[in-house]
């Protein structure tokens, strides 16, 4: 199952040129970027691992792409995303966030239904990948 999270996730995966163009757009808007990665892409997992600090001092897309590639090399079997932060007063939030790498094979999620009292049903999304310990997910298959 193809994970769809963040901007552009229903499009085909971006090429490096397209990623560079998006980075340039973010930098032109004065949005500093940061790289994050995870092997637990549950939709409610907002806390991905940070790859270094947010790059507040970079002015050019090539420098950001260098960090993206460094993160890809170090974590070839993880999801990697780029976040662009808009620091303007009144916004102060993530302005753009998109995936720049996904593992080769994505087992996907299953929906668990837990029946409670009074015919209530609780729903949970369960990622098949998390059945393996962290660091060992997405490495095979």
């Amino acid at each position, binding site marked *: 199952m193809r994970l769809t999270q963040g901007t552009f996730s229903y499009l085909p*995966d971006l090429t490096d040129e397209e990623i560079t163009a998006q980075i340039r757009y973010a930098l032109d808007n004065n949005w500093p970027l940061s790289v994050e990665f995870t092997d637990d892409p549950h939709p409610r997992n907002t806390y991905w691992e940070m790859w270094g600090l947010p790059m507040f001092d970079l002015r*050019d897309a090539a*420098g950001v792409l260098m960090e993206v590639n460094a993160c890809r090399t170090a974590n070839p079997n993880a999801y990697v995303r780029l976040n662009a932060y808009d620091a303007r007063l009144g916004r102060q939030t993530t302005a753009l966030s998109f995936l*720049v790498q996904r593992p080769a*094979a994505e087992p996907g999620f299953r929906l668990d239904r837990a029946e409670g009292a009074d015919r209530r049903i609780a729903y949970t999304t369960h990622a098949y990948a998390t059945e393996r310990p962290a660091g060992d997910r997405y490495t095979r298959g």
Partner: protein
Amino acid sequence: MTERQPFGRPAAEEAPPPPLSPDAVVDLASARRESGVDDVLATLGEELVGLVPVKTRIAEIAALLLVDRARERFGVTAPRPTLHMSFTGNPGTGKTTVALRMAELLHRLGYLRSGHLVSVTRDDLVGQYVGHTAPKTKDVIKRAMGGVLFIDEAYYLYKAENERDYGGEAIEILLQVMENHRDDLVVILAGYADRMDTFFAANPGMQSRIAHHITFPDYSAAELELIGVLMARALGYRFSPEAHQVLRRYLNRRVGQPWFANARSVRNAVERARLRQARRLLEGPDPRVGLAALTTIEAPDLLASRVFEDTAESESIAG
């Protein structure tokens, strides 16, 4: 799972526009007008006095850009030229000033994407302990991407007497980046001629990766005079006719004296003349001053200088 293109790989090669036929003709003059190269060169000529080798090299780089564009239209492509430079010259010959302009210049010529300049010295590149240097240098390089990385007094990076110095590591990373990221940034090294020669002798890899070794010549007395006038004008001052004469004599004398630092000495002379002019106005007999008095540097302001001390000239003129 659906078939898809993995991240980072282009879906398909984009077809370039069809090349011109071999017997077509491209008008370089109109291409030159459109590119705005002449504006860039003209402002450079106006604002920088002397420095002929520098201006020649910039004109050559600009010409190459136009020719490359014309070649491209015929389908002949060559990779971007190496633009790393080294500026050598005596103190005060304008190395730093030109480097600051170079970033903007290369940006306007279309060789750099953003045209900002990151100016660093040894402190910013070399770490204090093992493993500290590489991330530090890489951080600086990432910041300079798309612009110019200017390393002032580059010879401090390499300390021959201490083989455990971390400077060598910084140089190694720089060399790698100068080779692999040629399209992303331009590295400019600057320093005094003799020490830069030693630096290059110890780092032949650096020497060969720099395509443009530009030597900044010393200024002639006439050029220094023009620089002095321009500096005063930038500060909102002008020299009275007598002061102008004195400035010329001052510079002729100063050139031969120790610690002469070209344009920097001129700047110091102008600054000191400013101080003396202010004091002269405050202590003068007439406390009311007009715009002309406030903006004019008179002969005595310059004659009070130590440069004239060893002769009777100052008294004879002032008296």
